[in-house]
């Protein structure tokens, strides 16, 4: 999802990557209020200005610490002040209050003694009469760069040195005057980066059809029309259609049963993704949704067997799930998503292990969803079932069911995959016996 964000400035990208997951309703609501404001406005002009934003936080901390800035750094400061002032005007024009920017006209004034208001900088002649005079003399001696006689060359060297000394004095003076604005400049840089992120997030929401979530603390999570943007993209590229699903859960554990290739794992991955999207303040991949906040998302998926470490797939899986169990028992507020636990062992013990897991975790605040092919008989479990094959077409819709009986569609699906006919026939014969 990060990759589909059109963040324009490097500092925006950096800020995004350094951002931490939000865990309180208050901060998330505040974030979405601001995102909502940007979402409704046309920010093309602002985005265009942000294209030129450079990450100059090192320069700003040097300024704050009293270092004398060089020409390049002063240019950076002036540039930031100009971009920030221009963006401020655009924000005011559109009545956007989501991001506030300090007034930096004074900074521009200090670095633009001739008042031309273009983003360029050097130690201007207007800073000092002596400087102007020295430069005039340099020009007179130097001409077009012809070879100079020794006396002229010496004279030139003296003048160039004087020029450098004067420039340094002026830069010292400028750095001193700018120092009081270091804080404001940092705020401007931070808020412009944040604005860049908001604009990118709003753009992504429109591009991928994402929604604003409702967030709750210790409540119900539900998604209507939930989808997985990556899978959807891949399907659309093949000319196929993605079938969104609905799901809701609270504290009660959820099991999802259903045929192979019925999209159970995609559901788990989408739940994890959307939880993170919400808590990082992105648009969410659903038609509409309500998300219960957690401190951590645990997604146990796939086969982590490691021949090097001497761990079988079963052992790796058990250990991963065990970590989640321990954390939850310690009271961590987690959304636990487990894909087909104990699938690699015999069905008798496997079923018992899953039932045991559901019993030991019981109701948890963050939510607990697992997928399985086993007949789970626990009470106090909410059961979903993938509708499955209908006339050889997979219906990915999730429906609530009250019995734990798993569907028997594996052979039909294997057949539809074009598996060796003889194998299928032998299998069917064995099943009938």
């Amino acid at each position: 999802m990060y990759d589909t964000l059109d963040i324009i400035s490097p500092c925006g990208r950096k800020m995004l990557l350094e951002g931490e997951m939000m865990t309180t309703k208050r901060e998330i609501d505040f974030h979405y209020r601001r995102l909502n404001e940007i979402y409704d406005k046309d920010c093309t002009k602002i985005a265009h200005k942000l294209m030129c934003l450079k990450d100059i936080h090192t320069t700003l901390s040097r300024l704050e610490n009293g270092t004398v800035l060089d020409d390049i750094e002063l240019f950076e400061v002036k540039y930031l002040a100009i971009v920030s002032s221009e963006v401020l005007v655009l924000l005011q024009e559109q009545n956007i209050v989501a991001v506030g920017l300090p007034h930096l006209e004074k900074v521009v004034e200090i670095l633009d003694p001739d008042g031309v208001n273009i983003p360029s900088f050097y130690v201007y002649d207007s800073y000092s009469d002596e400087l102007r005079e020295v430069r005039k003399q340099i020009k007179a001696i130097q001409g077009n760069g012809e070879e100079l006689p020794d006396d002229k060359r010496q004279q030139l060297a003296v003048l160039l040195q004087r020029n450098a000394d004067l420039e340094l004095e002026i830069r010292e003076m400028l750095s001193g005057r700018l120092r009081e604005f270091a804080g404001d400049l940092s705020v401007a840089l931070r808020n412009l980066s944040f604005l860049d992120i908001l604009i990118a997030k709003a753009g992504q929401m429109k591009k991928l059809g994402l929604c604003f979530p409702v967030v709750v603390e210790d409540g119900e999570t539900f998604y209507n029309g939930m989808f997985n943007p990556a899978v959807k993209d891949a399907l659309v590229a093949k000319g196929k259609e993605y079938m969104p699903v609905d799901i809701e859960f609270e504290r009660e554990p959820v099991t999802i049963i259903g045929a192979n290739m019925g999209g159970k794992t995609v559901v788990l991955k989408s739940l994890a993704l959307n939880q993170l999207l919400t808590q990082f303040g992105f648009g969410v991949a659903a038609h509409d949704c309500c998300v219960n906040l957690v401190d951590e998302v645990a997604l146990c998926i796939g086969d982590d067997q490691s021949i090097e470490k001497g761990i079988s797939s079963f052992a790796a899986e058990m250990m991963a799930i065990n970590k989640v169990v321990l954390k939850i028992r310690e009271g961590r507020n987690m959304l636990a998503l487990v894909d087909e636990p104990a699938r690699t062992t015999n069905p008798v013990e496997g079923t018992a292990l899953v039932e045991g897991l559901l019993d030991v975790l019981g109701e948890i605040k963050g939510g607990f969803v697992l997928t399985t092919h086993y007949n789970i008989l626990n009470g106090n479990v909410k059961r979903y079932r993938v509708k499955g094959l209908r006339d050889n077409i997979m219906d990915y819709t999730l429906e609530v069911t009250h019995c734990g009986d798993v569907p028997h569609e594996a052979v039909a699906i294997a057949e539809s995959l074009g598996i060796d006919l003889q194998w299928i026939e032998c299998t069917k014969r064995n099943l009938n016996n």
Partner: protein
Amino acid sequence: MPFINEILKYDSLSIVGLEKNVGKTECLNYILSRLPLQHKRVAVTSIGIDGENKDQVTSTKKPEIFLREGMYFSTAEMHYKERRLVSELVEITNERSSLGRILTAKVAVGGKALISGPSSGVSLRRWVAGVQKFGIDLTIIDGAISRLSSASPAISKAMVLSTGAAFSSNINTLVQKTRFVVEMIGLPKLDDVVRDTLCDIESGVWGVDFEDNIIDFKLTSALALSSLKSDITAGMRLIFTVGALTDKLLNLVADSKNVKNVTLVVKDFTKIFVTEQCYRVFCARGGKIKVLQKSKLIAVCVNPTAPNGYVLDSDILCEKLQDALGLPVYDIVKNNYDI
């Protein structure tokens, strides 16, 4: 004041030396000091380090680059700080080199500076496009040793070539080697219905048959030729290689019985990496090479002094080169042309 007026007809120029110490910087200074800045905005950059006091490899004295008031130049951050002129910083570009970010500035009081700009072909193209916002009329790129890529017509339309005793200290060899490069620069441009289509192709080796069908030989480059099982020239009138043209491909065509009927096509002369010997055999058998894009070679400058102290006779050298190349040849240092 030779060839300055010729340069002014183009909007981009590259100066390329065939070897280190062939007087390329002298040549650049010559041009920079004579361009009429009152009605031309000029931007200069270099793909290597230029304008240094001493040669980094041979420690011989080198002329520095003198930039005049009003010129734009792009150089790395580190060299910008060492400049001995007054200049107004106008842009910090997104390009980087090992010496820091590449900056663009406008000279306020003329003086000397070290110039080291973007180095890859792609970044040079971006540089040329990037400085246009300052209303530049002429971009000048100083190419580095034996790197002709900056002279690619995709980057600059006109070029000036520097050659000299450093390239070879035997006049005849020098003339012969230079003539070969000039010959490659002067290869004719392909005038064909499929030209535009070929220009859009980005990689591989392709053929065009007599019905104008364009066929992909599924080769990643001319270097993968050994994987070929059949004669690619059969039934083709054009063979187009997007990447380098090497002796291998040239010989393959030269050895085929269709050599007279097929024309080899390359993007431009900077993609040609064939030896003169192979090229002569190829030509003798009736082979032809054409380019999609051609740069205009404006002049050849010579430096008769080699870094080891060996000096060739400037007049004889200029005369011999001029005869062999059919182009004006100048020894800029010796003649000290008027401004």
